[in-house]
């Protein structure tokens, strides 16, 4: 039952979504199916390798990269609900494996068909969500890897514009890093804290009820800080809203 118009996509869940907020993975499946894709979740996936990659352990990163490549190369597309994991697969893997005559070209081929989910929905599938309504206001933070490695900026805004009654509010410094940085936030907690504190100030100044972003790592950082400050701002991955999950529990809220 291969339907040429229905691409077969492999969902790369990401380690954080797998452990902390599977709802994002299910939202991804719902949206991809709604956008006309056949979605599969290969079981031979764990993490994209960023903990090692950001620590300079290139050998471990390459081992994880080869595993991801092997698991996902049969698919038409690899789709990730994270700009930072997508950036690692698109840019990190081909660079890391460039001198490997077997894996280098395989990494390059996988990179070409790897997409962050919001950019895939808009740029490749020309998808607009239908019949969505959510009362309230939200502000959007551009996660750095998505913004600068993949050029994701307009796509989430275009998708969110399709949600009825949702007022989008501007965020001061929307393109400024939230201070997460993967291993950075545990290696230099005090600096990371100072950065996310300023981000939380800006989020609160926006007056929005909700904070949306496209990367769970950044969202956990900002949501965790907002909660510690006693803020009432609720945080969601953008695709949860797009899949109709805006009425459910936000990040950190009791399920």
């Amino acid at each position, binding site marked *: 039952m291969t339907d040429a118009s229905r691409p077969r996509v492999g969902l790369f869940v990401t380690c954080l979504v797998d452990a902390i*907020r599977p709802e994002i993975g299910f939202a991804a499946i719902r949206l991809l199916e709604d956008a006309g894709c056949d979605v599969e979740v290969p079981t031979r996936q764990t993490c994209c390798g960023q903990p090692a990659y950001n620590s300079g352990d290139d050998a471990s990163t390459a081992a994880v990269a080869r595993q991801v490549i092997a698991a996902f190369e049969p698919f038409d597309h690899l789709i990730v609900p994270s700009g930072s994991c997508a950036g690692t697969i698109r840019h990190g893997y081909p660079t890391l494996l460039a001198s490997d005559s077997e894996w280098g070209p395989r990494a390059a081929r996988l990179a070409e068909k790897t997409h962050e989910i919001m950019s895939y929905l808009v740029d490749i599938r020309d998808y607009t969500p239908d019949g969505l309504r959510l009362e309230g206001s939200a502000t959007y933070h551009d996660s750095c890897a998505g913004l600068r490695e993949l050029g994701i900026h307009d796509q989430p805004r275009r998708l969110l514009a399709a949600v009825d009654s949702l007022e989008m509010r501007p965020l001061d410094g929307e393109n400024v890093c939230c201070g997460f940085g993967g291993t950075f936030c545990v290696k230099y907690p*005090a600096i990371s804290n100072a*950065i996310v504190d300023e981000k939380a100030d800006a989020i609160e100044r926006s007056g929005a009820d909700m904070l949306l972003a496209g990367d769970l790592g950044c969202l956990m950082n900002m949501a965790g800080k907002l909660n510690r400050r006693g803020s009432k701002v609720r945080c969601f991955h953008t695709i949860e809203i797009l899949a109709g999950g805006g009425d459910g529990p936000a990040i950190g809220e009791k399920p």
Partner: protein
Amino acid sequence: MTATTRPGFKARSDAALANPTLKTAIDRTTGTAERKRAAALARFAEYEAARSRGSAIKDHVIANLDHYLEMFERNATASGAKVHWAATESEACDIVIRLCREAGAKRVTRSKSMLGEEIGLPDALGSAGIERVETDLAEHIIQLAGEHPSHIIWPAMHRTREQVAELFNADHKPPPADDEAASMVQSARHVLREKFLSADVGISGANFLIADTGATCTVTNEGNAELTTTPPRVHIVTAGIEKLVPSTSHAMALLRLLVRSATGGELTQYTTFHCGPKRPGDADGPEKMHIVLVDNGRSEMIANEFRDMLRCIRCGACMNHCVVYRQIGGHAYGGTYPGPMGAVLTPVLDGLAQSRDLPFACTMNGRCAEVCPVEIPLPTLLRAWRGRSWRAGLEGATMRAGLGAWAGLARRPGLYRMASGIGVRALRLLGRSGWIGSLPFAGGWTRHRDLPGPTGGTFMERYKAERGKRPEDRR
């Protein structure tokens, strides 16, 4: 203090974070710089083309460095200047001190030069018993405070105007009339002018070395470089070899990028070309001009993964836009150069073991590379240092063991599933209210923020249950 007792990066950055006045000072300067740069680029429609051209000019010179160095030496010599070569910072200082002694100098004036800071010239002059007068206003402040620059464009940006007023009140005779900026500038001018005119030697840096004319070019907004290089009998230039450009028009192409990226101006107030000593008939100028060309690790960079860093034109945009710099300021970095470009250069200059924190104290957000006018991929270069650090075994045992365990699991999906299932169940017990407020092995996280607990079983468990599928593979 010796290297072993000198406070490390963490102690320095903690001290900086605990200093609200410093944060005020950083925010004022970098905030203004960011706004002005954005406005300048909005008016500069050809920016992207200029940026590519600027990068190409620098790459071309680096690829043909020998050729241009020889051309520069030939033309500078023909103009009457004397060119000296220094392989290391100590060689460079020795040459400058020798030239000062030959000139019988008791007092030298100096105009701001980061290369001078890099080679340790202020201290070397002090040890040689030569009085040093800093003519740049910010360097004058730094000198009075006994500090080092904290920014490559605004060396005293870590001090608020109020703090500068205190320094001037204590040092200037007579003290400034009040602590308005104009009175303080007036006071510094009064104190410095007289020294400008009585110095035996003037020492400057160079923003560009022009190969086809043999001239050196300085750009300032205060005019102090001209007063440093013109009245004294001897003018000494110290410059890194990467400052070479083929011709004056190439220098102007880079200057357009430099000024906009640094201050948001279109051109500096003073852009001066120094071409040899005073000639017969010239109204003024030094009797002798010396140019000390400094390598100090640069030719090694041509051949390694840090080559792109040689394009740097020292504009400071990367630090103005860096979230880490904007929290901790320049001194916390502990090297001559702070911020993203400093985190790449300091390990080159001081050794990786001394400065290993710097490439890691970065969130890899990429904004520095985005604003760099010569397209230096700073995060990629920082990552290269991380790789070197890992391969050299400089990473601590805890982190190595932790990553080793993680890598063992990440490469075995079946085992990973089991471990993550157990971990998630444990976290759920801790996070019954939704949030986890403290977690023993994640203290760095929970000291400052809460951790959202898992919302249920892992995605993979729930997916399997929902689809009624068995994983086809469990190794």
